[in-house]
């Protein structure tokens, strides 16, 4: 897992370092805009979480993700993300489980091409995990834990019309839960999200007419 974290860190670092000169060049060539202003959007979508139960394997959760986003600069924004995920049975414990997270943080858009842009985000907040851990074939431990949480990841956002976009993202989500001895342990989870984005202020959609 440490290697995976390092890889994600390197990817983010290179994305920022390599893209910065390109952005600077682009800014020199493009005319100065006359207006800068925030862009708001909200999104709702499906999310899937592969949750690591400490010393017991991975459990798959499915659920909904809601987020609100505000653009604070040409390449920067802030997001508030909340997701609710559920599984009817955690591993083989006969217990249902759910994860509720509320995270916020900055979003960076390193690359935009046509109607598609890449985003990278780093979020922090809290997550409530309700789950179970098998102790033996017949016994398990179940409970809930509210603990600070963070996430880092990115994805693609494709603008379909002036007010609608589709966002596909994945991130590493760090939460905490108990192990079979009842001790709090960190969880390294992978989360995939596909959502529809509704823009509250129009994002200019580059139509084919403009391209002619």
């Amino acid at each position, binding site marked *: 897992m440490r290697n995976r974290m390092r890889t994600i860190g390197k990817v983010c670092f290179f994305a920022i370092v390599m893209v910065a000169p390109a952005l600077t060049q682009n800014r020199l060539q493009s*005319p*100065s805009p*006359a*207006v800068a*202003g925030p862009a708001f959007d909200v999104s709702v979508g499906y999310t899937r979480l592969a949750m690591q139960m400490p010393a017991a394997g991975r459990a798959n959760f499915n659920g909904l993700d809601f987020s609100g986003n505000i653009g604070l600069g040409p390449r920067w924004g802030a997001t508030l993300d909340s997701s609710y995920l559920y599984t009817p049975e955690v591993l083989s414990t006969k217990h249902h489980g759910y994860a509720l997270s509320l995270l916020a943080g900055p979003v960076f858009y390193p690359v935009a091409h046509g109607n598609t842009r890449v985003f990278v985000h780093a979020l922090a907040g809290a997550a409530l995990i309700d789950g179970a851990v098998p102790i033996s074939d017949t016994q398990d431990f179940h409970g809930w834990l509210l603990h600070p949480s963070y996430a880092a990841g990115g994805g693609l956002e494709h603008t379909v019309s002036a007010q609608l976009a589709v966002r596909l993202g994945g991130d590493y989500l760090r939460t905490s839960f108990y192990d079979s001895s009842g001790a709090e342990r960190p969880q390294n989870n992978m989360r995939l999200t596909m959502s529809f984005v509704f823009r509250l202020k*129009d994002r200019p959609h580059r139509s084919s007419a403009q391209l002619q």
Partner: protein
Amino acid sequence: MRSLKIIVFLLLVSSMAGLAAENPKLSSTLSFDQTVDRVVKREREFVVTMKRMHPLVETYIQNLREDNDHNAEPVSDQYFLGRLDLNDGVRDSVFQKQHHGFLHHALNPVSAALGYKFLPQGFAQMVMLDPDFQKSNYRFTFVRREFIGEARCIVIDVQPKEKAPKGLFTGRIWVEDRDFSIVRFNGTYSGRADYTHYLHFDSWRFNLQSDVWLPSYIYVEESGTKRSSALFHDLYLKAQTRLWAYDPEQLNHEKEFTQIKVDSSVDDRSVAKDNSPVESQRMWERMAEDNAVDHLQKIGVLAPAGDVDKILQTVVDNLIITNKLQVEPDVRCRVLLTLPLESFTIGHTLVVSRGLLDVLPDEASLAMVLAHELGHIVLGHHVDTQLAFNDRYFFADTTAFQHLHFELDAADEAAADNKAVELLGNSPYKDKLGNAGLFLKALQDRSPVLANLISPRLGGRMVNGNTTRMTALFTSAPALEKLRLDQVAALPIGSRIKLDPWGNQLTMMNAKPVALVSPREKMPFEVTPLFPFLTYSLAERKLVAQGSVGP
């Protein structure tokens, strides 16, 4: 029979000529393609020329909101004045009245983060069609020929090609067919980003020097789809950008230095040449006044003495003569070239802003403004004599509004108001002051939403909260009736004064009076589009005249 043949022949010839005019083959020698080559070459030369120019750029923006009757009214405004520099991209060093520090921004994080921010350099950018204009990036389509004023123009639609880079101009250009200079372009820049916006604009260039057409006026308009929504409403605005002070001689007096002529000295020993203390004091104050006036003119914010000053002087003379005033030294009038509505005195010089002259509805209203300032002079409110020292002017142009202040305190303003009422009461304007009071009412009515328009840069405020200047006229004026067509309390911006962007000379506009057909057309204090009558500069005209008499 012969006359019939002649008529048929003439008809054929004239129809052929008509067809030729519609044909994209634009002149007898140049094809449309060759014409475009000339336009591109000329525009690239223009970019080089513009990099040497450092005019003042003034942008005034009015944000609009639609009411329930679909009438658009300003809800807020924004103002920038700066000096343009195109040498390293578009830069616009802004003249600021106050410098907002970190604390200001830190205390307004929400409004800063959630509101639209207007960028002065983005408006200044609209002087350029494309800093790297290349034929290969665009598709050109001939539209028609038309005259704009004296200039016969070829109208061409310009669109970026599919593979062209972002940020290229898309719209229509008007090219005068003498030198193939672009004199007007109308459209926007393509390929906008998510957070930043390019606006639609109509950019005009005037022939300011022989064969040089320079940007002079830009009208910007953007109308969003959610015009009346209080939350998340789109950009819905009108704006104008004016450029002036192109003439580099305005900024340095080297030309005067090279033209110095030493007159022969005159022996006047018989005439009294010593100055009494009173005369010396007056001279000292006049020197402070002259220094300030000269500096403001040098940095391009005060118009040189001209025709409009004479009109103001006539009104002032009417007030002085009918009140039997003895004013020493004599009173002078000058015009501040900026838009914000203000008037003030620098010693015995009355200064009125171009914006204020534009919106005043009649001569009596002008007399009201000038009477107030004359009141200061009659009451002996003198200039700050620190301005007699020239080192006081050693500061950057952009900080001029921070270093020069001509506002007076509230007691002096109130005293000048009272004096002005007295002066007006003895003047030929005494029976026509109803409109002057109405103007004040209209000004107060719009003052909450047009805060930047009524914020003076150098003088005192005309409206302060619920109080206006000349309260006596305000209270005695009839009620403001916005729907009455025959009650025009204030004019739109740009109604009266024409500005020569090269030498900063002002003249009165020569527009015919137009009968209003709806209250919407009253547009008090509002930005409106401009359709200038383009003319060739005098030097250019001379050149043409010389050419026409050749063999």
